[in-house]
């Protein structure tokens, strides 16, 4: 690979739609301003199975996906950790190579 490549963390937070602003807020406070929201169509967890056909959108979920430096990731994890159980978030962090990753 010719381009300048850096390692960054790839953060995924599975979150109920009405709580997405909370996660974005936490990300902004952690210095993460770039993110994407993926559509989740269904799933299962401790509360049984769900599908987003629900008329009430309150339980529909999205994946908040952000690529960020280790440092910002740590800050985001710090902000979200206390909410994981109370708000039913699921959070996991992988590692990716980013081309021209300086801006993340």
């Amino acid at each position, binding site marked *: 690979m010719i381009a300048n490549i850096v390692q960054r963390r790839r953060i995924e937070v599975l979150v*109920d*739609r*009405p*709580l997405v*602003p*909370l996660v974005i*807020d936490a990300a902004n406070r952690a210095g993460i301003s770039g993110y994407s929201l993926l559509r989740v169509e269904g799933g299962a967890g401790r*509360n*049984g*199975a*769900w*599908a*987003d*056909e*629900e*008329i*009430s*959108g*309150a*339980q*529909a979920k999205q994946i908040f996906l952000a690529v960020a430096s280790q440092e910002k990731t740590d800050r985001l994890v710090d902000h979200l950790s206390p*909410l994981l159980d*109370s*708000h*039913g978030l699921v959070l996991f962090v992988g590692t990716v190579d980013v081309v021209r990753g300086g801006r993340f």
Partner: protein
Amino acid sequence: MVAETGLSVLLSPMILFFVLGAFAGMARSDLSVPEPIAKGMSLYLMAAIGLKGGIQVAEAGFSSAILLALAAGIALSLLLPVPAYAVLRKAGGLDRVNAAAVAAHYGSVSVVTFVTGSEILTSLAMPPAGYMVAVMAAMETPAIIVGLLLAGGALGSGARRSGTALWHETFLNGAVVLLVGSFVIGLIIGKDGAVPVLPFFETGFRGVLCLFLLDMGLVAARRLRETRSLTWRLVGLGVLLPLLQGGVGVLVGTAIGLDTGSAATLGILAASASYIAVPAVMRMSLPQADPGVSLGMALAVTFPFNVTVGIPACIALATRFAA
């Protein structure tokens, strides 16, 4: 009379489509209505009833009855959650946060229950007054504030956002904005101005309601099947609360002098439980509450109960009071 009304209700195409959906959901058929279609139909229904309500008020003119009905609706939405909370804690065995969340759902209203009730009343030649749409919109959110007060200390944790954010969610909730907005548009344009758009909002109305209720049947049945949060006690309360609240609503409606159809509708509103506006706000403001409990009760128990039994019961009661 009750039995008769009940039967004619149960054999109307709308209710039969609801039953079809419930059957398909119970039988685990893969029938499903795409989520954007369901949301599109609910936007259509809300715009249509807002518009028609506004036009009717523009025709009938303002009256003190409107203010009385609005005040009664707001009072019901504010007060009903209190006894409901007590019952849910005692008889339902819920903790503080969950009881408060459920109470907020039952203090608020269900748009589709309102629409179904209005259609049935219209077919029985006692349509509710046009301003009842405004009453419904006014009842959507007061219960949320009471619910949060009842949850009390629990508010702390979500506090950072909840000041303005809550206020905002409460008054600028999509359903409220669309209902009130269409109502105001109806008021402005009046019957004549509405001529070009009414065909759309009238021709399709009952048919769309059929398909929407088909989906509600599917959703209610699936939720009943998948839920792990409902106990038999809660199911029982999901039947008891609408009966009690519906009775109070009809009583209040009759007491303030509403016509029979409107009094019955106030009862139907009081009996109904929100499954759109309130759940989203609760998820944001009381994230510790289990949405499986509140949505399970509102959608899977109370909604089907109201559509089949609660509405005819409110109508029968209002008719008796009127006689």
